[in-house]
């Protein structure tokens, strides 16, 4: 990821990815996906797509925790992973 500040993906854009993959409408990003009717295999498919999109690896434990598998929760995981990868990339 080599994006300027203005190009940084946003929660809103992430919501769109969730809606596209899971065929749901995200009205509140903090709503657990399971409460939107997204089953566990669908959540896995979403996280697979997220990993590939952002070039990161998400902790599998995240998937088993409904409080972390909201659109906002997953987006926080993505941002954490991207931030953790920054120093290594800056030094390479």
């Amino acid at each position: 990821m080599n994006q300027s500040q203005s190009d940084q993906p946003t929660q809103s854009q992430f919501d769109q990815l969730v809606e596209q993959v899971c065929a749901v409408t995200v009205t509140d990003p903090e709503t657990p996906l399971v409460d939107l009717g997204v089953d566990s295999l669908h959540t896995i498919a979403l996280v697979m797509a997220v990993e590939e999109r952002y070039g990161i690896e998400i902790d599998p434990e995240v998937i088993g925790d409904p409080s972390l598998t909201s659109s906002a929760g997953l987006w926080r995981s993505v941002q954490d992973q991207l931030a953790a990868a920054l120093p290594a990339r800056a030094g390479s």
Partner: protein
Amino acid sequence: MWTDIRPEVEMPRLFERGGDVISFAGGLPDLDVLPLETISAQLSRLVRLGGKLALQYTTPHVAGALVPAINDLMAREGTTAGADRLVPTGGSQMGLMAVGLGIAAPGETVLVQTPAYPGAAAAFRTAGLTLHPAPEDADGLDAAALRETVLRLRAAGRTVRLLYCNPTFQNPTGATLSVARRHELLAAARELDLLLIEDNPYGLLSFDGETTTALHALDPDRVIYLGTFSKVFAPGLRCGWIAAPEQLARTLRRTTEIMSLSPSALAQAALAAFHTRAGWSDLLDAYRTSYKERCALMADALEAELGTDGPWQWERPGGGFYIWLRHRDGVDTTRFAEAAAEHGVSYVPGSHFGIDGEHADGLRLCFSNVARGRIAEGVTRLAAALSAPVPALRGAA
């Protein structure tokens, strides 16, 4: 016991290969088109992230993640099905067995489009059903004759509620029932209170990308639709589905649960993930291109070797896996099987596709999995076998 099947309807050994034999027998897909590196990476990711779920037992439902992937396929033939109408299978063979066991009752009669896919005939017989040919004319299933047949069978005390067909790029003939005929067939089915079993493994494999409206699209309450990923992705995942009216879907779910306890969550998740990432269009196009090329090579070779005015008659299909040859004088093609083996080529004799000894004058050639460079040689070998003097049937007087 009532599940005994007659020896002549044993499944032909289609998938055995080896030696120098060029096999035109088994209907195997051409997996050269699969993007294996992508699939490998996705399976690895899937197991790391969701192995504890994907490798676990699950309930007899199509996973929510797979429903859009199924509907993406079905919509190409004008139809869809909600999750409440979907039942997971390990491929359509399981779907056929589930329908035979769960919807029909032992002893009742199922009408079957013939020549018929032998796996369907074997499944229905194993479920204790009696098979009767569905009447056809030159344009396929004949609704008017169907009315007469059903009324006659019912008058004779037979229970007739089901009609099995493979209406698009049929196995083995490659024929497709016209949309007009589909409407007529459904009108007759409503009038006679018949359920249609629409087996549709090849519907998206036309050579030109065109599709034909599914029977299920025209009357989803009158059709039990059998779908499969075996021909549009790969058979090794053993994953398919049934789309049926909700009440029948509930019954079929119970039956499939008894048959297999649980569908493969791993297969469902892998297919869902593939669809999420790439959709189906590129893979379908790759399969179509492969089969179009192979079919043309086989048909051109058949024309060159057997001519168009000799005893062997066939039509170039518009899709699917097969070319169906018939002998003009009705010779039983089983007679050529030994000569074919001696020449190093195999095919499926037409008698495998009859339900009571008919269609023995046909033979099925499958082009889908033969190496392009071997098709012409295989047809040359076949022509040599078919051109030999007609031998007597072994054991015949």
